[in-house]
């Protein structure tokens, strides 16, 4: 940990999308990751992918069951409000977030994802500096810049008994 690299280069972000995910935010994330020398995988309810807000198609790398958050260094939640009904039924989506939180990972989210936090047992006053709103392309970029820290170790005492 101490000898940590303070860079996200060579690391991987897991991006959870649904139909209707914001294409602009996704684009900003990808560009920032590319600049950082990092990679990403797209996780969607179905492996075929999802249709973004602007009608473009997002190819998925994993369906939600096949891409648990343990496979990524940090996660971004980009679901659209309309898709939340289904996502809240899916325990893998809940685990995706609950594990990312428990493993002290950075979590970027759009407002539509907030109900998933509740489902994952993360109350609003549990939110810490590692839970970052990425409501705009600009916010998405600064989220990626902050990933260099790799983990939010300050969270650990709150998710693990002494």
């Amino acid at each position: 940990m101490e000898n940590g690299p303070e860079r996200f280069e060579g690391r991987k972000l897991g991006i959870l999308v649904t139909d209707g995910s914001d294409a602009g935010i996704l684009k900003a994330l990808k560009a920032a990751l590319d600049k950082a020398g990092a990679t990403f995988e797209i996780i969607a309810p179905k492996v075929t992918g999802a249709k973004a807000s602007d009608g473009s198609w997002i190819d998925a790398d994993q369906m939600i069951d096949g891409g648990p958050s343990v496979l990524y260094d940090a996660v971004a939640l980009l679901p659209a409000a309309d898709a939340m009904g289904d996502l809240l039924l899916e325990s893998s989506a809940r685990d995706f977030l609950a594990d990312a939180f428990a493993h002290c990972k950075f979590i970027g989210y759009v407002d539509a994802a907030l109900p998933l936090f509740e489902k994952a047992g993360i109350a609003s006053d549990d939110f810490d500096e590692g839970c970052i709103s990425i409501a705009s392309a600009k916010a998405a970029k600064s989220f990626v810049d902050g990933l260099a820290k790799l983990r939010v170790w300050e969270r650990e005492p709150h998710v693990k008994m002494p």
Partner: protein
Amino acid sequence: MAKTTKSTRVTARTVTIHDQKLERGEGGELHQTASGKASVLTTAQGGPVSDDQNSLKVGPRGPTLLEDFHFREKIFHFDHERIPERVVHARGYAAHGFFETYKSLAKYTKADLFQRAGEKTPAFVRFSTVAGSKGSVDLARDVRGFAVKLYTQEGNWDIVGNNIPVFFIQDAIKFPDLIHAVKEEPDSAFPQAQSAHDNFWDFISLTPESMHMVMWVMSDRAIPRSFRFMEGFGVHTFRLVNTKNESTFVKFHWKPKLGLQSVVWNEAVKINGADPDFHRRDLWTAIKTGNFPEWELQLQLFDQDFADKFEFDVLDPTKIIPEEILPPVPVGRLVLDRMPDNFFAETEQVAFMTQNVPPGIDFSNDPLLQGRNFSYLDTQLKRLGSPNFTHIPINAPKCPFAHFQQDGHMAMRNPIGRVNYQPNSFGEGPRESPQRGFTPFPEVVEGEKRRLRAESFADHYSQARQFFISQTAGEQSHIAAALTFELSKVKIPAIRERMVSHLLNIDETLASKVADNSACRRCRNLPMQPCPRVRISILPQP
């Protein structure tokens, strides 16, 4: 008599399966036949094969004929596909690359690869876990092997290291015991790839020399995020020897360019289910997408005088020389830029051996290293099956070589010509070279022949403690959690208590935390005695 037919396939019809056109045989089986670009399937003897879907029978429903040489050869070969897995470090993954020398180290060593700045030496590196079998998971809590083969112009040099700078034991004679204890228990054959069981901790709790290593193995280093984010260490003290036959002691360190990174235990457990090949996939993907992992080789260099003054014995592989006392100097970089074309041919058949050193690199008397120098050659005969394992391309030197070794199973190249011995009067064949050949550093050694552990090896706790207190609060709590978890899987309370008695010598807070959380109901109340710090004198055995 069965009706004779001209061809095995009586009537073949073309069928389409989604996007593929094939032929269909009598029994509905599908045949893909050679045409266009596809080459003709042959036996291993080169004979073309007409039908690879049906064995030769008497009539369509009759018995299979012994004369079907294609069938017999195919099954025979398949039956013998497996070779024994490595007795340790069975699960591993490797890549090709190169080592680039920053600047000449001629002052310290005559090793050819260190003479010229910018020199690139081909390399093959295999990462591994220690305890699990070949098919075990990547995120076991375990030491990682970090074995580097450098194909130098004066022979292969293998730095067979780990991602932790110390080891469990001080003398190679204990290695079989250590490995037996950590591997699955012999009666139940479980647990697989886990140190969290009675036998391991029983052995450890009776092996105080392992305590420093135990601190490292319980730290985050034992659950790395990726092979790319690990350090590597040669562990032992070696020697560099220059053309004037002067020796400098050396320890080898590999520092990852992208830094160190680990996962947390709860995550590791889940990764093992979600992607048991997590580390393999990570290395494969990185290299295949042009993100070549890189390490810097750094050396800790010191002389006899430093060794004499250092508070621990530099021949003791359970000790480090702290980098604050002796900063390592960068001497080159290792880049991995190509995955093997075939896993078995290269990664499985590669044979690393500590005794592979070129002129200019030499051993120290570290009794663990001395024993390894026997073991690694010996084990290859079992695993690869022939003394000719150096003929396998991944093990063959990439420099000119010549010797009179011949014959044996699977000899690929024998000496050519009349002469296969030396001296000879025909003027043929290679000859020894006192100038270029490997000459050991002429260290003066004397003493009584005895089975004796040096007293200078007897402090088993100081560096364990130093390591523990050097960790951040978060890292310390990971160590406590790891010990708690491991001991929670130990059924026999006395073993857990014994471990706590060692921890008391390392750090009292750690000891009481582990005792409290897992170790035992009894030692919560009992005033625990730390176990004796220094070895009580045991008479040497003849």
